[in-house]
Structures are given as C-alpha cells and as structure tokens.
C-alpha cells in the first residue's frame, strides 16, 4: 500500500484516501519507470542469476550504475546482497537504504517550508502543486516568490498560486530574496495562515556567493520565526547523474536540507541518484513528481519505488 498524504503530513484524524488514489502512485511509478527500455530485472537477468558466478554480479553492478545509483551505493547493495546470497532481496535492500518513512512537518502556525535546488529542477512547479494539495487538504497557504533572479519566475509562481487559491507574496525583480521570505511569514502571521512555501532562485551549488545568499534567506527566516524553516526541501531532477549527490551535500551544508523532492520521474530516468543521496547523506526523499498533473506530486514510498525500479 502506497504512502498517503495523511501519513506524510502526520494527520491522524484525516479521512483515509480512496484506495484508487493510493494505488495510483505505484502504478504511475511503475508505468513511468518501465518506459525505460530495459527494466533492471531484465538487465540483471534475474531468472538466470547465479550467486556463484562473477558475471552475474557484474551484470547487477552495471545495471545499478546505469540507473545512476553510483559507485559507493552500488558497492553497498552488492555487498548486502552477497551476504544474503539472494538477488530477490534487491528491492528490499534498496528500500532499506532509504531509511524510515519520513513525514513533512506542517504542524506549526505557520509552518515554513523553504524550497531550494539547482536551476531547472522544477522548484516552482513543485511548490505550485504542493500549495494546491495542501489547500485542498484544508491548509491555508502563502507562497513567497523569493526567486528574484530568473526572468518571469514570479509570474510563473503567481499563476500557480491563483490556481491553488493560495496567497501570493512577491516583489520586484532583483529584490532581496530574504526580504520576500520575511514579508511572507509576516503576512501569514497577520492573516493567520498555516503554511508558508518559499520559492528560491535556482543556483548551482558550486556558486559560493549564491549559496551564501541562500544561507542568509534561511537565517532571516530563523530569526523571524522560532523553529522555522520547519522543512527545507531540495528539489532534484530524476535525470541528474552523480552530480546530484554533490548538490545534496552542498545544499545540506549551506541550508540544512531536511528532505528531497525527486521530480520528473515520468521520463525514462530511473532517479537512481536518490539512492546515494539517502544512503550517503541520510537525506530522506519526501515527495516524488511523476507527471505534469497536480495529482502527480505524491508522497514518496521507498517500497513502491524500489519495486517499480527493479520489476
């Protein structure tokens, strides 16, 4: 059974989601992951897998590397499977690397969620969808356009906010992003809203000055509201290669990332880079994007993901 929004958001009294919707995540994920030309199972030749045969292990290694799992996490998976002597345990072992199922903390007044990432991973779109989902679940949402760099980023977010029925806090292009975040929290406090989603400009993690700017946004949020930001989500594009690990490492150092949103899993990309991000850095994946529709943003379910990846 896939993880539901109620579970992710830690709602205890919430009405259970319809079965069809919960089943949706797995089938969509499987649909999208199986679009890749060869499933892992086929590549590994699971049926003919012989634990005593070096070539079998080599095929497993290569299959994982081609899914962007990377060298260290692949080595760890192979080590664990060798210890168990059973290739059928692959999905289990992958799911185990993701750790305990995470929650997304929105139980504050207001809860502040800072969204960060490199350029073009889908931060604004993810925020747009998340604001609509949270609104539909009875939260009142403020979105803050703290991407004051990219041309028309603000307009893009404003359109999403309108669709979601969320409040929108913007500013001039080139304005101080920290000030936008500050204003948004202030607005949320004044109007009694309960979630603030802060969109930031995409930046390459290697640009020290831009990372410092981001750290400042975080500091201003911290000072404005005790305990905030309650979540800092790193948006990672599923087509990213091993560079994604470095992205996660540096964003974590700079702004204390609490979770990952893995987007664009509806391509043929397997998003395997999420595995080393979770395994090497201990960062849980909280959300996945499996399509362009609103309902295609889903809570991440490690079991589902691992099964869809392998089968």
């Amino acid at each position, binding site marked *: 059974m896939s993880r539901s929004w109620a579970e992710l958001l830690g709602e205890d009294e919430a009405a259970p989601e319809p079965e069809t919707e919960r089943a949706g995540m797995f089938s969509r994920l499987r649909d999208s992951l199986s679009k890749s030309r060869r499933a892992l199972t086929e590549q590994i030749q699971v049926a003919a897998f012989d634990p005593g045969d070096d070539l079998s292990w080599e095929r497993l290694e290569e299959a994982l590397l081609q899914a962007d799992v990377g060298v260290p996490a692949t080595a760890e998976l192979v080590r664990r499977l060798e210890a168990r002597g059973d290739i059928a345990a692959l999905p289990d072992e992958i799911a185990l690397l993701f750790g305990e199922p995470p929650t997304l903390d929105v139980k504050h007044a207001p809860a502040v969620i800072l969204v960060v990432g490199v350029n073009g991973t889908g931060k604004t779109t993810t925020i747009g969808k998340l604001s609509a989902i949270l609104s539909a679940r009875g939260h009142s949402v403020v979105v803050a356009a703290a991407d004051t760099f990219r041309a*028309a980023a603000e307009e893009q977010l404003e359109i999403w906010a309108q669709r979601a029925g969320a409040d929108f806090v913007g500013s001039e292009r080139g304005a101080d992003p920290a000030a936008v975040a500050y204003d948004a929290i202030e607005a949320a406090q004044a109007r009694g809203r309960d979630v603030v989603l802060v969109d930031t400009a995409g930046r390459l993690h290697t640009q020290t000055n831009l990372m410092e700017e981001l750290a400042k946004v975080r500091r201003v949020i911290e000072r404005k509201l005790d305990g905030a930001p309650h979540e800092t989500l790193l948006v990672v594009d599923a*087509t990213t290669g091993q560079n*994604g690990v470095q992205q996660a490492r540096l964003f974590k150092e700079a702004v204390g990332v609490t979770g990952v949103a893995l987007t664009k899993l509806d391509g043929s990309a397997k998003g395997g880079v999420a595995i080393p991000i979770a395994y090497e850095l201990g960062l849980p994946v909280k959300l996945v994007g499996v399509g362009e529709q609103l309902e295609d943003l889903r809570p991440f379910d490690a079991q589902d993901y691992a099964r869809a990846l392998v089968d």
Partner: protein
Amino acid sequence: MFDALSDKLQSALGDLRSRGTLDEEAISRAMREVRLALLEADVNLEIAREFVGHVRERALGQDVRKSLTPGQQVVKIVHDELTALMGSGSSQLAFSPRPPTTILLAGLQGSGKTTAAGKLALLLKKDDKKPALVAADLQRPAAIDQLMQLGEQVGVPVYADERSDPVKAVRDGIERAKADGRDVVILDTAGRLHVDEALMEELAAVRREAKPTNVLLVLDAMTGQEAVNVAKAFQERIDFDGVLMTKLDGDARGGAALSVKHVTGRPIKLASVGEKLDALEWFHPDRMASRILGMGDVLTLIERAEAAVGDDEKEEIERRMMKGEFSFDDFLKSYKMLRRMGPLQGVLKMIPGMGKQLEGLDQVNEKELGRVEAIILSMTPHERRVPHVIDGSRRMRIAAGSGTTVPQVNQLLEARKQMAKMMKMMGSGKMPQIPGAAAGAKPRASATRKSSSKRKKKARR
C-alpha cells in the same frame, strides 16, 4: 568544469606519465582506473568500455613502444580519444544563404532552453547578426514573459502570441521576423519529456513548419545515464544537428558531454558556462579535452581576454605601460577586466599547468577581488592618480570607508607598486620574473577542507 573526472583521469594517467617504459600491466592498471573514472562521471557504460578499449589498443601499439616518452604518448592518445568522443570538426552553426536563418531549440523541461535562447541571441548579435526570438513555449506558465524579459535585456525583438498554438506561433514569428528584416530567428519551444508521444509529435510538427536551418538539443550537463536515452529519442523524432550544453559552470561530471555525440553522431556546438547572459561559448572538443586532462586552454583564455577588453582600452593600457604609469584607476580597470572574463578560478584553470596548483585556491579570492574594488573606490580621484600622497591618516580613512583594515589597505598599496614596477620593465622590453605567489593568490584555509574530503574519498575505496 568536469573537475572530478579531471582529477581522477590525471591521477590514473599520472603514473604512466613519468615512466620510461610501459608494460602491459601498467597500462591495464591505468585503464581500469580510467574506466572507473568515466563511470563515476556518468559516462554511459558502453561508451566507457569502448573508450578504454580504443585507448588500450593504441597504447599497446608500435608507435607508443618506440617512443622516448611512452607515458606522454598515452596521455596524447587519451586526449585524442576524448576529443573524438565529444566531436571533432566545426562547432559552427549553419547560416542560410536566404535569410532568415532559423534555429530551433528543443529539450527536456528545465534544461535551460529559454535562457539559452536569450544567450544565443546575444552571442549572435555580437557577431553582427540581427537575431529575433520567437516564443513557441505556450505550455509553462510565464514562459513567454521570461523570454520577453530576456529579449529586452539583450536588446532583441521577441515575437509571441499567447493564444496561438506552437505551430502557428512559429509560422507567424518567422513571418514577422522576415518582415522586420531580422536575419536569424531563434525558436524557443516548450520543454517536453522524450517519452511523451503527444508532445514529441507536436515538436515534430513545429519542426516541419519551421524547416529550421539548425536544430539544437538543449541538454543539462548534469544529466546522468539518462542523457543517452534522451538524446537518442530526440534524434529519432526531430533529428537535431548539434547540442547546446547548459550548466557547464557547475561541477558537472561530464558524462552527458562525453556520451551524447557517440550515440547520436551530433557534436556539441555551444556551451553555457555561467548565469550571466554573455556566458555562452562555442564549444571546442579539443580544448575541452585539454582542460579535462589539466593541459589548460590558452586559446579560450585569449578569446575571453579579447572579449573583455575593448580595442581602445587595449591601446590605452599599452600606452600607459610603455610610460611605466600604473595608477589605481588602471589597477581597478585591470581587475574589472579580469572579473569580466568569468569566475577567477575558471580563468586560471585555462593556463597550462595551473590546474594542479589551484587546489585550495577557493572562491574566497572572488571576495578578495570585491575588497580590492571597495578599497580603491574609497580613495579620492587624486589619491588614485597619485598614490604616494596616501599617508597614515588617509589610510585610516580609506580602511574605514571600505570596511577593511589598514594592513589590508597597505597590502594593496604594495601590490600596486609591484605591478607598476613590472609594467615599467615590460614596457622597456625586459621580461620580469613573475613572482611565485602573486598578491591575493595565496592558498586559503579552505585548502584543508578540500584535501580532507579527498582523503575521505580515498579511504572509502
């Protein structure tokens, strides 16, 4: 750029470089490391295998064994093969004999098409073309606004019609560009997944309508193993002519750049190397191979320097140099020029042999450049022209004004003196000894951080 791959390849080949003779075992060992380096850099598995196969075969050949410096020969072979992998030949775009030339940009969501369109328009404008932009991305909210704003920034007209469909938008856009006498039309299309049948068909329809002179696949340099699938799918459906690689200014590992030509036969033509709109460059596979192998890239360095310095500026500097004058105004000008050439670290890496010496030289120096500017701007015009009037109390005022300390001001005053001396010597035709550590190029505390992470990497293996 491609630092991780660069480090690993250089260390894999380092052992060979110094050897007088090469045996099969040494080569095999190096090749295993090269293969791992490529895999860790997201290079497609089959391509990595083939690459290593080629290099090994050639390395074991007669030419290498007879060579006096076999290690160097192997490095040269790797260089050749890297170059071939990224595409030999010209990186130029095709220009139609009957303008307008049309350039269609296509790619996944978030690969950077719209920004690339703006940058390309600027690059072509600088090349004395009259480009126009056409918005055919009617999908993403505010994509048209983004293109409009970019067009305004680079001073290029943008044709857009929100209520249109992409095919019609392209047709109208090209018509309007023609009527306005524009000679290059850049078509910005919506991002789409290569597995999305309907959207790929739409793109094919746009292509049929536009009959573009050039079709460029815009590809994020950080793409992993997926790059191959994406490139193949776009190749099959819309048959692009070349690749525009974006986000190369990060620490992308290079897998996409090294894989895409091999699977599609289409070369990388352009590379985006920074956030600023002028950070788009023609791609040169041989130069990139040199950079990856730590051999520097003098040609790009010279080109960037030329672009950063205006002609009259150049003459002015030469004139002053001959006279041995070097005021703080000149100092500031040269600093600004350096900064216009892109991030300091990237610039220095293009100097052969500098790559290795730069470990530790972190972005802190970018800050130092900012400080230099602040100090100079806190001087009066008179002080800048006649620096020797700057006495103790003036130094205190300058330090306070620039938010620095008197020792920092002193350091800068000393640096100017040294530079003036050097200029004088150069002006008089004598080549000065270049001091080992130029002012501000000292390794910083961050050096330890970098080396410790390296140690960790080794320990893991």
